[in-house]
């Protein structure tokens, strides 16, 4: 395997990890605040559709991005309404959000474009283009580091860099700000936050909205940067893989970067080499596709370190009267 192929695979991994990273961080905010969210998939899907649809109609990808975030936040608020205000079952609400998005995107897509749930393919200003970092071309000829800089680090869309920047940002918000401290506290022991005179409801809604924004970015990236347009069910389980990455990362931002890169790498390898020959046996591509899920189950089983979720996760908070 030569250097160029390694670079190609790593480059693919970086592209494929971006939606996972956004969604994983989205789940991180929500679950750290005590709101389980298995609706990441649905929010991404809805955002992907809204972003591609608006970008296709207006020809402006930034308007598409705004629409994608808006659609995702709307679903996030629905989840918040069910799980915070009406103290419903957060898991059931998440399932509902996923189906709602799966159905609505096709219904609206068919109504708007009559392409069987697809949006027209995007090009030019309606799609995020690659950003060439400074000196990428001049440094290309430097041995080893040159191609790494020019091929791997430069030439991605702006959203890829934004996703990477979100990791330290999330760490800083969660562990170095007052808001972050309260957010983590509300996921561990909401009663103590309430006693301190801080509104649990307000904090949890804030977390859910941040989750919506990040899922919106993930979905918009899928349909307007990674692909050129929306196709039905295009998230293809990425929301669940992000959820898996979140558990893998034990609800920590830096670990999330590592976990999503690992899962992105698996997908990139599976794309590049459908069947891998290791001497006598051939590893089928299906195994590579299932590997993130298998790894998550192993992690959950506690065989490789223990993943302990935020303590108050999944439980609605009932204020004492």
């Amino acid at each position: 395997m030569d250097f160029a192929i390694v670079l190609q695979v790593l480059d693919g991994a970086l592209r494929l990890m971006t939606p996972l990273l956004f969604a994983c961080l989205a789940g991180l905010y929500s679950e750290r605040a005590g709101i389980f969210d298995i609706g990441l998939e649905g929010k991404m899907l809805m955002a992907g559709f809204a972003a591609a649809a608006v970008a296709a109609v207006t020809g402006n990808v930034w308007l598409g991005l705004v629409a994608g975030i808006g659609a995702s936040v709307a679903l996030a608020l629905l989840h918040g309404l069910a799980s915070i205000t009406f103290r419903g079952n957060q898991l059931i609400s998440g399932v509902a959000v996923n189906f709602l998005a799966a159905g609505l995107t096709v219904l609206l897509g068919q109504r708007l474009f009559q392409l069987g749930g697809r949006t027209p393919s995007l090009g030019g200003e309606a799609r995020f283009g690659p950003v060439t970092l400074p000196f990428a071309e001049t440094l290309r000829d430097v041995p080893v580091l040159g191609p790494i800089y020019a091929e791997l680090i430069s030439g991605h869309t702006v959203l890829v860099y934004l996703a990477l920047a979100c990791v330290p940002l999330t760490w800083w918000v969660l562990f170095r700000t007052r808001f972050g401290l309260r957010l983590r506290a509300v996921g561990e022991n909401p009663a103590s936050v309430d006693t301190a005179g801080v509104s649990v409801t307000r904090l949890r809604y804030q977390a859910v909205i941040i989750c919506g924004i990040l899922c919106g970015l993930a979905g918009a990236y899928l349909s307007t940067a990674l692909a050129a347009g929306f196709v039905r069910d295009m998230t293809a389980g990425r929301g669940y893989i992000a959820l898996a990455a979140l558990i893998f990362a034990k609800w920590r931002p830096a670990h999330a970067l590592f976990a999503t890169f690992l899962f992105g790498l698996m997908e990139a390898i599976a794309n590049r080499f459908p069947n891998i020959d290791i001497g006598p046996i051939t590893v089928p591509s299906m195994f590579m596709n299932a590997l993130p899920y298998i790894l998550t189950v192993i992690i959950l089983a506690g065989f490789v370190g223990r993943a302990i979720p935020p303590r108050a996760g999944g439980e609605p908070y009932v204020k004492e009267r």
Partner: protein
Amino acid sequence: METMPKWADLILTPLISLLLAFAISGLVILAIGENPWEALKVMVTGALGSSYGWGFTLYYTTNFIFTGLAVAVAYHAGLFNIGGEGQASLGGLGVALVCLSLPWPGWWLALPAAMIGAALFGALWALIPAVLQARRGSHIVITTIMFNFIAAALLNYLLVNVLRPVGSMDPSTPRFPAETHLPSISDIMAGFGVSWGQHTPANVTLIVALIACLLVWMLIWHTRLGYEIRAFGKSEPAALYAGISPTRIIITAMMISGALAGLMAINNVMGEAERLLMNSVEGAGFIGIAVALMGRNHPAGVLLAALLFGFLYQGGGELALWTSIPRELITVIQALVILFTGALDNMVRMPLERLFLARRRRGAR
């Protein structure tokens, strides 16, 4: 103190939730520029207007009874089994292996054997998440979701690389031998001299499903195990104090749940396709969630809810055929039913409770 009479809790709240879900579905149809009333007429005519429509409706109903019961049994133990989809597809594998491995003399022997295969494979697929929940505390919702994906990958592999007959391009098993063909409802009706539902996939599995409803009802409310399952689901510490082993209940309840989901395969794999296809479950495992929620986890409720979703599913297919409304409308309705009867239950319940409380106060005065 009970704030609401029992009938209001069991019938009124789900009914209002359902009406809300349908009202919003109607608005969605309006929003995509179609007439909800016309759409409803197409659905009713297509699904219930002829014995042909009924044949399909009852076929789908059979699927949803099994997956709905699967979710309901786990729910009584306080476990949310989202893995019905994976368990049902593994059930399909069990059915295929049974049907293809031995020369069966007739369906009457192949059916019980296939049922055992389906239930066993479904139960085993639920066993791993159950053991992980019971022994290692891993969240069953996440593990069952992961197992759905692993099941899809596994079947994909088996159908493409192992079970596919030589020379066939189709990722599926060979056709099952003719001796394993299950009698359809129309065959049974023809035996009585009645022409009903010709060329429809509804088959004898429907009767198995109805028996399953009865057995689940007996299990949950009339056996010691059922009592333990319910006690555990209501309060784990109380059950533990009463000497009920959480490990045993989690594993037993999940295996029964998985077996029920797996049994669906005798309807769609053995009864309809007569070979194992890729993605044979087609989302029925997930519809089971909506069915169980709407049916309040009671077998009678599950039966009614499964019939409703059978109607919606067949009606949705007719809509896609005769109008420009895609069949994904059913996914939206399914989502709204889950949302209103499941997650937003309190939104309907709280005002109703207030209403009944006010009435009672007035009555007491």
